[in-house]
C-alpha cells in the first residue's frame, strides 16, 4: 500500500498530466452562439403576451376587423349589386332565347304578347269549364242558341276572334 504522501504526489502529478477531456473545438465555437440565440429569444417579447398586455391595441384591431366584416357582408347583399346581377342574368337569358335587344319598350311589348296568350288560354279554359257546367245541367238547345256542340264551339271561337280584333 502506498503511503499517503506518495499517493498524494502521484495523484496530483497524474491529474495534471491527464486533465478532464475537453469538448471538440468545433462545438466550443458554436457554444457561445447557441447561448446568445437562446438569450435573444427570451429577450424578445412574446407575441401572444403582447396581445394580452396591450388590450387597447387588441380591441382596436378586433373592432376594425369586425367593421370590415360587416361592410363586406353589406356590400355582398346590396340592392345595387342585386340590380347588376339581375341585368347580367337577364342578358344571359335573352341571349339564350334568341331575343336580340333588351330595352323597356321591347320588354313591354313582349310581356303584353305573353299576356294575350295567357288570356286567350284562360278564356278557353273558362269556356271549357262553362261547357262542362252546361252539360251537367242537361240544358237543351234554346231559341237563338247553337243546336250542336260543333256549332257551339264555332260560336265561341267567333266571339274570341272578335275580342282579339278589338284589343
Amino acid at each position: 500500500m502506498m503511503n499517503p504522501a506518495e499517493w498524494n504526489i502521484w495523484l496530483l502529478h497524474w491529474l495534471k498530466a491527464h486533465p478532464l477531456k475537453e469538448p471538440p473545438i468545433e462545438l466550443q465555437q458554436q457554444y457561445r452562439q447557441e447561448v446568445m440565440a437562446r438569450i435573444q429569444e427570451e429577450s424578445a417579447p412574446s407575441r401572444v403576451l403582447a396581445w394580452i398586455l396591450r388590450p387597447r391595441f387588441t380591441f382596436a384591431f378586433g373592432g376594425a376587423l369586425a367593421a370590415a366584416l360587416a361592410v363586406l357582408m353589406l356590400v355582398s347583399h346590396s340592392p345595387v349589386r342585386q340590380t347588376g346581377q339581375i341585368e347580367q342574368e337577364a342578358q344571359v337569358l335573352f341571349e339564350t332565347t334568341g331575343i336580340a335587344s333588351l330595352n323597356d319598350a321591347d320588354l313591354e311589348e313582349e310581356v303584353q304578347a305573353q299576356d294575350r296568350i295567357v288570356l286567350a288560354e284562360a278564356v278557353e279554359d273558362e269556356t271549357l269549364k262553362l261547357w262542362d257546367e252546361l252539360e251537367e245541367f242537361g240544358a237543351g238547345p234554346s231559341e237563338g242558341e247553337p243546336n250542336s256542340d260543333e256549332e257551339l264551339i264555332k260560336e265561341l271561337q267567333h266571339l274570341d276572334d272578335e275580342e282579339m280584333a278589338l284589343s
Partner: protein
Amino acid sequence: MDADLELVEAVLQGDTNRFGELVSRHQLAAWKLAYSLVGNMEEAKDLSQNGFVKAYRHLRGFRRGSKFSTWLYRIIANECKDFLRQKGRQPSLVSLSSDAEDDDSPPFDLPDPAKDPREAAHNRELAKRLARAIGRLPMKQQMAFILHHLNGLPLQEVAQLMDCRVGTVKAHLFRANESLRFSIGTLLLAEVRR
C-alpha cells in the same frame, strides 16, 4: 474593477451582447464542471448552457461582492443535481446512460496511443479504474474531489459551492483521497515494484 464585473454592469445597463463575452470567458470551465458531474459531453453542454441562460435571467440578483464564476458554477452545479435527481442518477465521471457515445472512454485526456501503445494502454486502464473509484465515493466526498482536483477550484470556492466551511471541504477531500488510495494505490504499488 474585475473584468467579469464590468461585463455584468454593461449587460445590466442594456448591452445584452456583452453577455456573450462572459460566456466566452467561462464556457470551457462551465462545460467541464457539468461534464465532471454527469459524465456525458452532450448532457454537459445542455446543462451548462442552461446555467448561462439562468444566470442571464437572474443577473440582477448577482451580488457584486462575490465572484461571477463562483455564482455561475453554483447555478450549473444545481442544474446538474436537478438533472441527476430526475434521472435517478448519482454524480459520476463514468456515464451510466445507455446511449453514451463510448462507455469505455475514460473522461481524462490521455496521450496518443501511437506514441507508446503499452504506456497508453496502461494509462487507459488506470484512468478507467480511477473514474470508477471516484464514482463510488459518497456524494459529498465525490463533489469536493471533482470540484477541487478535477476542476481546479480553490478550497474557498468549493466551500461556497457546497455551502459549507473550508474545514468541511478539507475533511471531505481527506476521506476521498484515502478511499482512492486503497482502491488504486495497491495496483500502482504492484506496478512500481514490478
